[in-house]
């Protein structure tokens, strides 16, 4: 029982972490919270499912397909909407991304219908590790998310793109002065963040099995909780916060009841906002 709780928590936490780190880096460069973030997760899942159902693709092929589809959509949204949010008052960011969320979610529902779908793919063979039995897919999720976090840390610290990203996050005006193409960095970061969310969706689908158009909303709100708990803009804090939240949810779902699981995120959010506005893992200012 306890082992299951732990395994579920770590798996779900890794999933959340991938989504949340995308939102955190987007917030870093844009100072805007992406209310549509969960929709990219949802679209990743749907794109993969669509590839498998329609073209009978193997799961492994559907992953790059899903990432490409979501990246293309994110690029379009980035150019049409997100780019205009540079230097915009915060309410505009809230309302515009909320609008995008409505558009994406309901377009998917319009195309594929509002019913639950079954995801048929992935590696769900159980593996025995000591006394614990868990599916290969869960191991993949955890390993992949750790690798991606390591890679992301490397990209942000070492690459040219990562350095420009950090520069934009710190001071947009200065970047404008020295000739950094700020809109380009913003759109690039946005596409990267959304693609990470999509990857998370694709990796999770074999475990959660069912998918539906409205599934992004609860992911978005959980992501809020995670980035607030982890400290906005703090990449490793995001990972820890995601695990913490997912473990708590797992404990609550097991011992109190499944219906209370979704309340955990917001209770945590409100408690952290009230008592530790900078988050658990950083001393940064409120946002």
């Amino acid at each position: 029982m306890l082992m299951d709780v732990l395994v579920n928590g770590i798996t779900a936490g890794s999933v959340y972490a991938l989504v949340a780190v995308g939102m955190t880096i987007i917030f870093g460069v844009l100072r805007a919270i992406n209310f549509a973030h969960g929709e990219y997760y949802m679209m990743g899942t749907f794109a993969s499912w669509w590839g498998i159902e329609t073209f009978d693709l193997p799961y492994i092929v559907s992953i790059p397909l899903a990432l490409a589809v979501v990246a293309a959509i994110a690029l379009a949204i980035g150019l049409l909407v997100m780019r205009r949010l540079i230097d915009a008052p915060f309410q505009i960011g809230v309302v515009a991304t909320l609008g995008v969320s409505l558009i994406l979610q309901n377009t998917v529902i319009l195309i594929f219908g509002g019913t639950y779908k079954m995801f048929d793919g992935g590696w769900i063979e159980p593996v025995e590790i000591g006394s614990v039995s868990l599916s290969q897919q869960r191991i993949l999720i955890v390993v992949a998310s750790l690798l991606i976090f390591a890679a992301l840390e490397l990209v942000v610290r070492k690459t040219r793109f990562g350095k420009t990203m950090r520069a934009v996050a710190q001071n947009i005006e200065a970047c404008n002065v020295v000739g950094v193409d700020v809109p380009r960095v913003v759109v690039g970061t946005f596409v990267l963040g959304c693609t990470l969310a999509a990857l998370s969706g694709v990796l999770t689908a074999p475990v959660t099995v069912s998918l539906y158009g409205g599934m992004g909303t609860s992911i978005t709100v959980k992501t809020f909780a995670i980035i607030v708990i982890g400290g906005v803009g703090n990449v490793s804090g995001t990972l820890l916060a995601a695990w913490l939240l997912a473990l708590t949810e797992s404990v609550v779902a097991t011992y109190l009841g499944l219906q209370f699981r979704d309340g955990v995120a917001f209770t945590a959010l409100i408690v952290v906002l009230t008592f530790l506005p900078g988050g658990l893992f950083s001393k940064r200012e409120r946002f």
Partner: protein
Amino acid sequence: MASVSSHGVNTHGNYVYANRQHGLRIAGFAALVAALAAAPLVASEYQVHALIVSMVFLLPALGLNLIHGYAGMLSFAQMAFFGIGAYTSALLAMRFGTPFWLNIAAGGLVAGLVAIPLGVPALRLRRYSFVMCTLGFAVIAQTIAKNWVSVTRGDLGLSNVPRPRIALWNGGFEISDIKSYYYLALMLAILAVLAFIAIVSSAAGRYMIAIREDETLAASVGTPTWHYRMIAFALSAVFAGAGGSFYVHYFTVISPTVFDPFYANTLLVIVLGGGVGTVGGVILGSFMFVALSEALRIAPDIRMIAYGVLLVVIVFACPEGLLPLVMRKIGTSPAKEVANAT
């Protein structure tokens, strides 16, 4: 570094100063009321129903306009307060058989009272943190409504909420036909609009605008900013709670779906689309929303997509909302007055 917060452009873009067209406004309001009073004579039953719905949504929309358009805080808690008002009224009417007017007052009052302890942590926050925190209230309210089965009957919700009764010397009568509901809703909407105008045109309303414009500067002219933010938050909850109360007495059912993001988005479309920080804009917004949603009734997905497109287009293309745009087109623009004055 402590400096005065500079929120940059005022996205509201409204001009609250224009008192010169007072007469025109009163005439416009009177004409609207007259038209609405006459509407059931010509409108179909279905159209009357649509008008009732728009007047029900007008109340939480006015509340959102107060907290966002005037006090400058974007709150997603409006639908939570709407739901609290609705559940309060339904439970009172079902368990104690209390009269309608008491229920609606209690709905508003309870929502306002709940807002105060929620405001204590929430009002320490600004911008995104406040938005998320208030969004959290809606989610938690929904969780409670779903799980407190002994009181709320969970997902089933409450049904067969009694219809309003009007007490008269001969024992009174029950409001059950749609036209009586319509006039009740109209009366309530007029009262709400008048109350709203009274609040925003008072000295307190001026303080709220000052807080929206620049909180530090507002404190420097002696505004106890925290108190007025709290009052605005609680009053916005009262409007929403009263709206929820009428909602439940009209539809006679209430379930946790009332806390869904759909309704919160609807309020945003009404307030931002109509004209944030104006009274007429929000009235226009509620009717516009109902027209839109009824026109797209056959396809709820397309309706939501239309909402989404509308929100995106509004914030970038006309952040002031429709009313100021219309006003400018017909040439009674405050901006023009200014050009003449300077």
